[in-house]
């Protein structure tokens, strides 16, 4: 609102490419400082708690195998979840895309005559842009996670999937709360700010009878849903209202209840650097006398099923949304989350977003990485993100090659010529011979090249280039004295 021109766009269909979107952050020292501070704190805590776990690699191995297995048999596990959840009194809905999911949720709210709804933080709802749709449909939406309140009241966009407001510092939070809650004398002490949020929400929790949540895990064996949180706003939303609507990506399913013994050990350690997050809740359909008596689960596809058919890319869906990859990423650390033009930033966003878009948008994201591999190393379910990045880059290139206009693109022309030269030895040597003659024209008497024409000038503008030696390596190798072998 305050700076509409720079307002980040997180809709991949209209977001600018990564290098363009990254510029406002790179030019904003305050934002970079906020991001770096938050990430340093999480990283240090994570490293300490992962190091104390002597079976960490075995947990990763098991976590990876469980998630991969669930995806291999996704259809069967989803049907099992549907049956068990329905048996327990829940209602299961299937949404093929974002528009269907939004409409299902709005229709459910209308059946309840709901004019207001409270929400637990769910990135999936941000993915389908649920809030503006509900508001337009006449339903007031109240986020209840502290970070989400900051974003909602400040008209900000999420920049991280676990701590979505990490780019906002305490004085900015104070300004937002003071303005939107009418608290002029609010201090910028995080305790005071948190207390203000508690007061702001308490009556909403007690009065609004309808809630929306995401899901960390769906349990096929029992039809249960699990939510992992810290503040207790989740428990409020899934205990006090009459009606609960859970929006979950189809990939969130785990075969059995017992599989949580792996997931709950790796998730909090990876996400926030805690041995266990303060509250994890699990519920199964409807329990008479305890919690919401109307319970709906909306299973969202929205591009996920199309990822399954690629054997390399399928691992993307193993993700349990811990955000360890973005915390470890040297690129994310510099650009923050908004540059990724999606609610899923960082390395996982760089592979997930273009695939959810069926490779029709966000094609710059697979390049938003130095391929250093830090993300793979920290991933608790061993998603080989660099491997997927490379595969997606190949897909992007193949797409581009099919576009007619690319035929005369200098880079593609150059690569085609290189392909021709490098695949034939005689052509390579001929080109080398001609190139050496050409280069000599620009080599000074001191053996250095000080200025090159055309594209070469881009190099010599800022630095000199050493002239070529008198022999090539091939020539030297063939002519070297035999006793030196």
């Amino acid at each position, binding site marked *: 609102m305050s700076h509409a021109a720079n307002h980040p766009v997180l809709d991949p269909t209209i977001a600018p490419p990564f290098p363009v979107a990254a510029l406002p952050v790179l030019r904003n020292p305050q934002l970079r400082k906020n991001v770096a501070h938050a990430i340093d*704190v999480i990283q240090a805590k994570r490293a300490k708690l992962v190091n104390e776990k*002597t*079976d960490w690699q*075995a*947990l990763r*191995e*098991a976590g990876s195998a469980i998630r991969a*297995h669930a995806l291999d*048999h*996704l*259809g*069967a596990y989803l049907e099992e979840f549907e049956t068990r959840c329905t048996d327990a009194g829940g209602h299961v*809905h*299937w*949404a093929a895309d974002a528009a*269907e999911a939004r409409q299902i949720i709005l229709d459910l709210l209308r059946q309840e005559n709901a004019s207001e709804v409270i929400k637990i933080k769910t990135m999936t709802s941000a993915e389908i842009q649920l809030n503006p749709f509900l508001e337009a449909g006449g339903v007031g939406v109240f986020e209840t*996670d502290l*970070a989400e309140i*900051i974003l909602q009241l400040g008209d900000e966009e999420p920049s991280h999937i676990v*701590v979505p*407001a990490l780019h906002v510092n*305490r004085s900015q939070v104070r300004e937002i709360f003071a303005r939107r809650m009418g608290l002029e004398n609010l201090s910028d002490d*995080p*305790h005071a*700010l*948190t207390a203000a*949020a*508690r007061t702001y*929400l*308490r009556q909403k929790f*007690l009065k609004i009878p309808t809630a929306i949540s995401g899901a960390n895990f769906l*349990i096929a064996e029992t039809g*249960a849903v699990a939510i992992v949180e*810290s*503040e207790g*706003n989740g*428990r*409020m939303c899934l205990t*006090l209202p009459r009606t609960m609507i859970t929006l979950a990506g*189809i990939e969130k399913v785990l075969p*059995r*209840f017992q599989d949580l*013994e792996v997931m709950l*050990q790796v998730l909090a350690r990876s996400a926030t650097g*805690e*041995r*266990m997050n*303060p*509250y*994890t809740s699990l*519920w199964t*359909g409807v*329990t008479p*006398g*305890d*919690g919401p008596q109307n319970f709906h689960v909306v*299973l969202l596809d929205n591009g996920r*099923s*199309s990822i*399954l058919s690629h054997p390399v890319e399928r691992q993307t869906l193993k993700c349990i949304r811990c955000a360890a990859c973005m915390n470890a990423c040297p690129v994310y650390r510099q650009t923050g989350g908004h540059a990724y033009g999606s609610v899923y930033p960082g390395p996982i966003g760089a592979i997930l977003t273009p695939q959810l878009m069926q490779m029709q948008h966000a094609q710059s994201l697979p390049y938003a990485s130095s391929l250093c591999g830090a993300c793979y190393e920290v991933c608790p379910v061993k998603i080989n993100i660099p491997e997927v990045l490379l595969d997606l880059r190949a897909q992007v290139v193949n797409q581009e090659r099919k576009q007619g206009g690319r035929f005369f693109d200098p880079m593609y022309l150059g690569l085609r010529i290189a392909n021709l030269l490098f695949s034939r030895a005689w052509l390579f040597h001929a080109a080398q011979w001609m190139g050496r003659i050409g280069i000599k024209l620009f080599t000074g008497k001191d053996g250095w090249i000080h200025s090159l024409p055309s594209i070469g000038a881009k190099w010599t503008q800022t630095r000199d280039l050493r002239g070529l030696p008198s022999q090539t390596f091939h020539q030297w190798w063939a002519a070297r004295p035999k006793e030196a072998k």
Partner: protein
Amino acid sequence: MNEAVQSRERILNRIRIGTGSATQDAAQAAAYAALPRGYIRHGLRSADECLALMIERLREYDAEVVECTPEALADTITAQLAASGKHKFVAPPGVPSEWLVTPAWKITGFECDIDHGLTTAEIEQAEGVMTGAFCGIADSGTIVLHHSAAEGRRVLTLLPDWHLCILRASQVVETLPEYFDRCLQPPALVTWISGPSATADIEMTRIKGVHGPRFLHVILVLDQSERLTLN
């Protein structure tokens, strides 16, 4: 309605194409059984070390912990309530009545409503809540509620600002997998509590107490003889 059925079939069909199968088969069960599970199931600590770890972890979360013998439990509860400075409490119906009746109660003027269908507003009025627990997990300092009659409905341990949880030493396990081993049937409702409600959303500064109870007190009942028979 028809549209909804279509979406279901459409999604399941896409999954079928993507994975090559979508129906349950013998291979699925075999593949599940063969999943690698090389992580630590059983801790190596002695019973005493395990309790010491549980206490250490709880204190790291700023939870208050006191230990007592089974005989001293009622008095310890009274002392904890008195030290809390609060007067109005709630408790689930399955809490043993001997926990709640000691001579000191009348003097100090405690009120304790048993939850035989209290309204949300009534629970919101309570200053504190007292419950049992299903299990304690030492490795992460976690208290697990399965919301049985002694642990109460979920709302009971949510609205009051102060939670006194009575945990028996025989209920404490070392590792998370050991807790799952104690679940003979998958429970329908679970709340895993690891310290009081907290947030770090503002500059990663950990703030205690956002929406859930801000104060967690644990009485650890040293029923070691029971534990010995269990092991």
